[in-house]
């Protein structure tokens, strides 16, 4: 089932796709490094990470079925 990565808002201007899958990944730091390699423009982008719908502020281990989201600052309302 792998790890699902979701992109939102202005992050999708960089990634073009709104979603991709990784077979496997040890933790969120590793995932971010891989994403930066794939989408170098993310380096200049302000965004938060959410793991399974919870905002995270430090490295978290990943397991099969996890969902990681890259979210720029919210602008609802």
């Amino acid at each position, binding site marked *: 089932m792998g790890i699902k990565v979701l992109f939102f808002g202005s992050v999708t201007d960089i990634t073009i796709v709104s979603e991709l899958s990784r077979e496997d990944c040890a933790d969120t730091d590793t995932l971010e490094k891989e994403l930066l390699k794939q989408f170098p423009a993310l380096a200049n982008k302000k965004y938060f990470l959410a793991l399974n719908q919870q905002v995270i502020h430090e490295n978290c281990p990943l397991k099969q079925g996890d969902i990681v989201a890259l979210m720029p600052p919210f*602008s*609802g*309302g």
Partner: protein
Amino acid sequence: MSSKKQHSIFYQGPIPAQKIADDIQKHSAKTNIGAHSIFLGQVRQDEKNGEKVVAIEYTAYELMVEEKMAVIREQFFEKYALTCMHIHHSLGRVAVGEICLFVFTSSAHRRDAIDACNEMVETIKKELPIWGKEICTNQSSVWKQNN
């Protein structure tokens, strides 16, 4: 009509004024209500880089919004003596002049409804993973920023 029932806050496209009237009308049966407070967000014709905004396109991390709203809703019903609270936010395209946010709180006495409504508007803008993209006359677009 259960006050704490959870259902999606999302509404596809603009929120019609008629829906607001219908929702108000439904509350006439709740005779313990003395005050309703309503906030409506309307898409404003701003200018971005010299181009007029014609619409905002909303997207959201829907699953996360629903999970967060369930927690926020509980917190609000603990903090305020509310009879009910209804929140609707548009997804997709909402043209200038149309309604994109509808917050509706009710209580026996006015302070609870008013204070909860005000705090909910701020909470929605700060806490919910929703994004607005302003679409301009020349088809250019700018990601909206909340202040």
